[in-house]
């Protein structure tokens, strides 16, 4: 089956270690899914490219044409990899804006891998305290392993069980298995199938 992984990176600079982590996770997820027999497309979304559109979406209530395509990519994907830098002990504003403008049903039952970068490993629980609850609230299926990359992780070897490479592989494996046991996401359009009025009249 053909599968799509949407990858959202909220890094601000280029090059960005957040994007680097996102790419490592995407590669690993692709490999794991291919091992399960899927053909995989990866769609990377750099939120920086949509910065002004995100603000405009919040203010106007509707997305620009370009941002609308991003919404559709995320909603239609089989899985989402969401990566943010840690700012002031949480996800950055960009990242939260993106989550806020998504349709509130876009992530229902969607496998999501959360990941973050930060200036020190002492921030790593941002994943558990900030990211995981937001996606749980949106009824996404957040895989158990969340991946945090501190500066020292980029200079560490890959032999230890706790190394970044191992954590990436474990998380990607969990994501691939969640995708594999699901059908492709379906989208019910209320304009195609409106609730019949008799039902609305009788609705409690």
């Amino acid at each position, binding site marked *: 089956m053909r599968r799509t992984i949407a990858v959202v990176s909220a890094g601000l600079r280029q090059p960005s270690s957040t994007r680097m982590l996102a790419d490592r996770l995407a590669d690993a997820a692709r490999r794991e899914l291919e091992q399960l027999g899927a053909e995989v497309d990866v769609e990377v979304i750099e939120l920086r490219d949509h910065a002004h559109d995100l603000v405009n979406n919040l203010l106007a209530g509707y997305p620009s044409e370009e941002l609308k395509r991003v919404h559709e990519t995320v909603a239609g994907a089989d899985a989402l990899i969401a990566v943010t830098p840690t700012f002031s002990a949480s996800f950055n504003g960009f990242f939260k804006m993106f989550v806020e403008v998504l349709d509130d049903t876009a992530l229902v039952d969607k496998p999501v891998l959360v990941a973050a970068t930060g200036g020190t490993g002492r921030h790593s629980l941002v994943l558990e305290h900030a990211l995981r609850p937001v996606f749980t609230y949106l009824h996404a299926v957040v895989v158990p392993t969340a991946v945090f990359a501190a500066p020292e992780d980029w200079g560490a070897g890959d032999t230890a069980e706790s190394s970044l490479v191992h954590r990436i592989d474990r998380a990607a494996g969990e994501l691939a298995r969640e995708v594999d046991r699901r059908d492709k996401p379906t989208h019910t359009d209320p*304009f195609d199938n409106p609730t019949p009025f008799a039902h*609305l009249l009788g609705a*409690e």
Partner: protein
Amino acid sequence: MQFGIFGVGDVVRDPVTGRMPSEHERIKAVLEYAKLAEDVGLDVFAIGEHHNPPFFPSSPTTLLGHVAARTDRIVLSTSTTLITTNDPVKIAEDYAMLQHLADGRVDLMMGRGNTGPVYPWFGQDIRNGIALAVENYDLLRRLWREEVVDWQGKFRTPLQSFTSTPRPLDGVPPFVWHGSIRSPEIAEQAAYYGDGFLHNNLLWPKEHVQRMVGLYRRRFEHYGHGPADQAIVGLGAQVFMRKNSQDALRDFHPYFDNSAAYGHGPSLEETMKRTALLVGSPQEVIDRTLAFREYAGGDYQRQLFNVDGIGVPRKTVLEQIEMLGEVVQVLRKEFAVGRPAHVPDAPTHASLKAAATEGK
């Protein structure tokens, strides 16, 4: 086809002069706009309903009753009447009364209202918005159509042996439009009853308007009121005109940039591209308006223009209405070209009365 103006009666500072009008000035100015709209040949004047600042129209039938006494021809309508937080019994009474005062020149547009706290202020809950619109409107229809009503529902006190007075003029209830920017349920409601559906065509992009109107037309046919192209569709637009389009853009920019609805988001140019905000020369406004048919599923029945709001001063609004009078003369001619004979006009008291007599 009907053309008119609609507004929501906001009381806000003119960002160009810094001048803040009083509520009294604004109320008096809006009466003047209604009278001028009739004088320049427009067909409809509609005012919204709000129960929170900066808006003054908490009591639309009082205002429209006054307009009725000062005009002879123009149809009085609302943009919108809150079907959620008003008691449907009071709507039935107030608008039947207005209908008598105005000799039938009345219709109204139902809306839910999106100001959260207004619901609890009137004893309701915004989360019941759709359910309130459905139940209240169903009762309203019965109050106008049945002499004696026994009724029980979820949101108001039950009624036993209730008669809403005055009875609708000539036994013909006012025609009802339903307005909604986003909710397919409201397009469905309008279709179910064979009522009109009006999209304000503003604030959300035209592809979305197309989907809402498309759903309404399709379901209108589904419920057996006639083919989809005979459904009763209205559209809004916002207009600011100068002789030259550059002058229009220059003069409108400060109002747009400082407005509560538009300011600091997508640019004026982007908003013009995606919504029915029409800023330019009269000819540009004519061309853009004629093109609404491309996404409204073809010919439609009512076109309302917003000219008053976001701090535009009285003198400018009066100029806009004068220009609109000329623009509408052209639009009438152009919209009539190639309009299929089976596409109906918007119902009026006279046409509904004739249909009722025929039905008997």
